[in-house]
């Protein structure tokens, strides 16, 4: 009975921590770039800059720079996935597309 109560409390705490109202402070500013890093983007959790905005910006960037649309025109994530961050599980489950991007180590030259 006590264990059940603790589980309930943990589940509720996790749910609350995933509410978007905490995004400004809690959510990581996920970062992205193209292969040669001529395009970079950083989300601003809770301040208007989102993965949706990143995709729009990258599309516009490729239109403006057709040469960057040749060869590897992939958009990469430059952040690492941190599954222990329970307060970002909602994003990982319901907005997993950003986590599905190929990874580019930001330290690689």
């Amino acid at each position, binding site marked *: 009975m006590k264990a059940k109560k603790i589980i309930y409390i943990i589940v509720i705490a996790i749910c609350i921590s995933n509410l*978007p*109202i*905490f*995004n*400004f*402070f*809690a959510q*990581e*500013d996920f*970062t992205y770039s193209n292969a*040669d*890093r*001529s*395009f*970079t*983007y*950083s989300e*601003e*959790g*809770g*301040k*208007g*800059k*989102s993965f*949706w*905005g*990143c995709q*729009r*910006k990258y599309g*516009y*960037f490729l239109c*403006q*720079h057709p040469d960057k649309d040749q060869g590897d025109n992939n958009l990469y994530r430059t952040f690492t996935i941190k599954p222990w961050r329970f307060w970002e599980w909602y994003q990982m489950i319901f907005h997993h597309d950003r986590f599905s991007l190929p990874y580019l180590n930001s330290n690689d030259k």
Partner: protein
Amino acid sequence: MKTKLISMLLLLSFIISCKKDEQSNLKSIPTQVTDTSKNLSLAQVKDWYGENVNAISNVNNLNAISTTGIKKSFNYSTLTFSWDNLQSVSNNKGNYWIGYLGGQPTFKKVKQGYRKIAFMKDSTGEIQSRILEIIPDGLYYQLKQKVTKADFTGRIFIYDQQYNLVGGQVFSAGKQIGLIKPKALNSTTSSTLTNSASTNSKARTDEVSVSQDCEWNDDNYIDGNGEVTIYSELDCTYSIYDDGGGGGGGGGDLSGSTDGTGGGGGAAASAPAMSNLPGQDSPSIDPKAFMICFGSLPDIGSTTKITVYVQEPFPGTSFNIGPNSVGHVAIGLTKTNNGTTVTQVVGYYPNATGMSKFSAPSKISDNGGDLAYDVSATYTVIPSEFNQIVNYISNPPTNYNLISFNCTNFVYNACLAGGITLPDPNTQLMFGAAQTMTPGALGTNINALSGMAGINTNGGTTPNSKGACN
């Protein structure tokens, strides 16, 4: 004869000796009455207090302008302090004694700040006491957790020993930025308290002009004696216009500015080509590199517009937090000349992560094409006003604070620099303890203007920015 001579000498010596006493008495009396020696001892203060504590009182109306005719009184003997806590402080006029006093003022509906009592000599050597009400700024106190003279931010009200407000000062980061004085009694605004008078002045150097805008505003609070004090406060704001031309022609930064001593600027008919520098779409941008693009279009014949984009925290409500977290406000600038249009949309952000975002160095980010806004307001301005806004954005404030200077403050002040007063973005947080500008309040008040020219309440996505110019 000899006896007579001795008697005369004795009488003479007696008279002289009496005069000596009289002289010494005359000399000592003035030193007691008009003792202007600069040092004030605690014993003198105690003596003065003992003699005057029951004599000082005030049964007249105090600092409130009474509309009911009720007399408010003050009795000096009701002040509570400890002699052991008094400290001597030296200054260039001698010294004074100061210590903590019981009681607490109520400012902005919240009990905050503290009182002190000071004893000093005036220019005639008379001992006087003053009561100080020190009210640190709420945010300053929250961040620092202690008050220091070096960076004090807040207000100090000074009362005489009859508890009449005699003046005060407003400080920011240890520097005096304003004055406080008793509200003029002949004023009729006892309830609205929005009386104001403003002055404006400008100072200028070769490249920088500083504009000072000072305004007397009436306000009130409840002093430590429990009475409403109505006062006038002189608040000054300073805006710096940086011509940035560095002399000589070329460059073309902000051509045609009303303050323009900068470069002549080219009369190019078309905007420069998009730069293709690596990292130009980086998360934070160089605002100068973005704003300089407007210099490529001449002011004469240009149409200039400012658009404020608001992403509300909880669209359609005045909540300051919601599905969009805290929300965001961005500013868009558009200059059109002869069929060529330059648009830049930027926003003000903290350059930090996690909880450090509350107060951090600031950065400007490009919000063009990636901000889904809920409401917007568009204003047409003349080129000189447009250039003032461009200049403000080129030199943004360096520190972001979620409460005292956030994205809404930035956009509001940028618009103000160009003569645009946005709908009121102020709202009360924490039960009235702190007033701040928020996207929620601005969005609500723009929504209230629905149907007016330039107001969009249907939302949309910000237009793409032109980007940095070489």
